[in-house]
């Protein structure tokens, strides 16, 4: 099992993501100009400020050669995880539903928040249980998840809301407390909190490791 972690100009969390992946499997960096994924089994689109976040957050990165390869990989059922700016890029690329808007309080936020696992029957969360509480940091200026009401109902109905902010922990005004969503097929997942910053007790929590562990291990037979 090998992770490929994309590095755009302006990425800043790709090395933490790489280190987090390496706790559970092999991992290597993929350059934004590479038109292919070098045989990666799962792709991580990391946090940062890709291409300066010009125009809108995540809007330019989706035109990079590596994102074309990621889109093809995703269309073929490949596993793609987008974290923070990576989530924004995947939304802009149309690989995930919805959009991320400026935080309702206008300020950039950096703090530990509690999340609740809403759907544990996914390749990203099968090591967790429904209702599990995870302590994972957020750090973003545009993390307010938005989608039109009918789309939110559909996400709910199809189990695409994977993680929510725990009651009282929604830091940014995200609709329905959504912290992470998947596509309908369940192979692409994006979240605003940073699991890669929560894999070692040294930084306060290891809860983020659940996501990388879920990807690295096969789900236990039911």
């Amino acid at each position: 099992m090998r992770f490929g972690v994309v590095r755009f100009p302006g990425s800043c969390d790709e090395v933490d993501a790489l280190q987090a992946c390496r706790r559970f499997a092999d991992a290597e960096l993929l350059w934004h100009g590479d038109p292919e994924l070098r045989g990666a089994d799962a792709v991580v689109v990391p946090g940062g400020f890709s291409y300066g976040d010009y125009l809108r957050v995540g809007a330019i990165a989706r035109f990079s050669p590596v994102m074309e390869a990621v889109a093809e990989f995703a269309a073929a059922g490949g596993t793609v995880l987008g974290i923070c700016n990576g989530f924004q890029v995947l939304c802009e690329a149309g690989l995930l539903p919805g959009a991320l808007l400026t935080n309702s309080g206008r300020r950039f936020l950096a703090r530990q928040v509690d999340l609740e696992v809403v759907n544990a029957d996914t390749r990203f969360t099968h090591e967790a249980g429904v209702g599990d509480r995870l302590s994972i940091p957020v750090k973003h200026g545009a993390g307010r998840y938005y989608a039109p009401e009918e789309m939110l109902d559909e996400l709910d109905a199809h189990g695409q809301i994977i993680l929510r902010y725990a009651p009282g922990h929604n830091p940014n005004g995200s609709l329905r407390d959504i912290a992470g969503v998947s596509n309908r097929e369940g192979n692409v997942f994006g979240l605003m909190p940073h699991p890669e910053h929560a894999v070692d007790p040294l930084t306060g929590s290891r809860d983020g490791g659940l996501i990388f562990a879920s990807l690295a291990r096969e789900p236990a037979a039911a």
Partner: protein
Amino acid sequence: MPRARVLIRPKEGILDPQGQAVERALPALGFEGVANVHVGRLVELDVEDASRVPEMCERLLANPLIEDYEVVSIESHDQDAEVIPP
């Protein structure tokens, strides 16, 4: 080349924290009686084929899920070059 000017604004009903911040700041300067402030973007571009501007808006300049756009003026560059006195 014709010059296109595109206004992009948050869709109606979408929370606009930037607009709210400006709206709250104006009375502090003595400007009373201001409501419904929204902050958007202006994109100006010289284009060979102005008929393609709406497609550019749909695919890159705006995100149709969260933003409305309006092509407000398409004029020749010569007309646009009028010098505004300081």
